[in-house]
């Protein structure tokens, strides 16, 4: 995780375009200023960041399914549940799947685990639109390489 740049996902472990599922890993940093306030003496990952991590996982899945032709934006969070504490230094594994592909929107479900222990889950809705700016497309390409997105899977 690069919390300062809001990069919550480190690597894509598995992407199944046909099955519309993704598995990613996110290494929670051992040290970060966030933990100074959240909380003194008992540092844990904020629930909003766990939710964002689930959203970014879903976002990469949607980007793959849509072949990087459209950009998903988080629109709705439902049933977000923080089921257990996630501590500095822990490795978070997030699985997401597409529950529904609508016209201009998609719904995913996501779960985050540390080891076999379920830590968080949520149902997420995204609006998706053509990339609104070429710079964003360039950035997402660079990020895709950085996190090991299997671009060959979406090659024409």
């Amino acid at each position, binding site marked *: 995780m690069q919390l300062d740049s809001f990069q919550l996902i480190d690597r894509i472990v598995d992407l199944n375009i046909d099955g519309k599922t993704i598995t990613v890993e996110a290494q929670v940093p051992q040290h970060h200023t966030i933990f100074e306030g959240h909380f003194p003496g008992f540092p844990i990952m904020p629930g909003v960041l766990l939710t964002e991590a689930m959203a970014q996982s879903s976002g990469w899945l949607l980007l793959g399914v849509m072949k990087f032709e459209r950009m998903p934006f988080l*629109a*709705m969070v439902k049933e977000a549940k923080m089921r257990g504490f996630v501590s500095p230094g822990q490795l978070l594994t997030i699985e997401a799947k597409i529950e529904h*592909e*609508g*016209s*201009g*929107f998609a719904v995913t479900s996501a779960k985050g685990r540390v080891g076999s222990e379920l830590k968080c889950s949520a149902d997420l809705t995204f609006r998706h639109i053509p990339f609104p700016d070429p710079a964003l497309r360039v950035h997402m390409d660079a990020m895709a390489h950085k996190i090991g997105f299997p671009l060959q899977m979406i090659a024409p």
Partner: protein
Amino acid sequence: MSSTFDQIATIIAETCDIPRDTITPESHAIDDLGIDSLDFLDIAFAIDKAFGIKMPLEKWTQEVNDGKATTEQYFVLKNLAARIDELVAAKNASPGA
């Protein structure tokens, strides 16, 4: 079996917390019921699932924006129900349906 309108009205009532008895076939989802675009995503999701279709919201929106259609054609509920019936019929008539 309830009508398409009844199913839509129930979905809207439950999704947007609008009293069911205030929703009529003449209601305009946006102008009369005050449903915003985000709530309409929720409604579209529920309608897609309930009817096994994919409402072409982007196409409809584009047609309205281009002046080729009015919002009434798609968002007055009796008209929305008719569009949904058309989509269901098209799906059932397609090969492999």
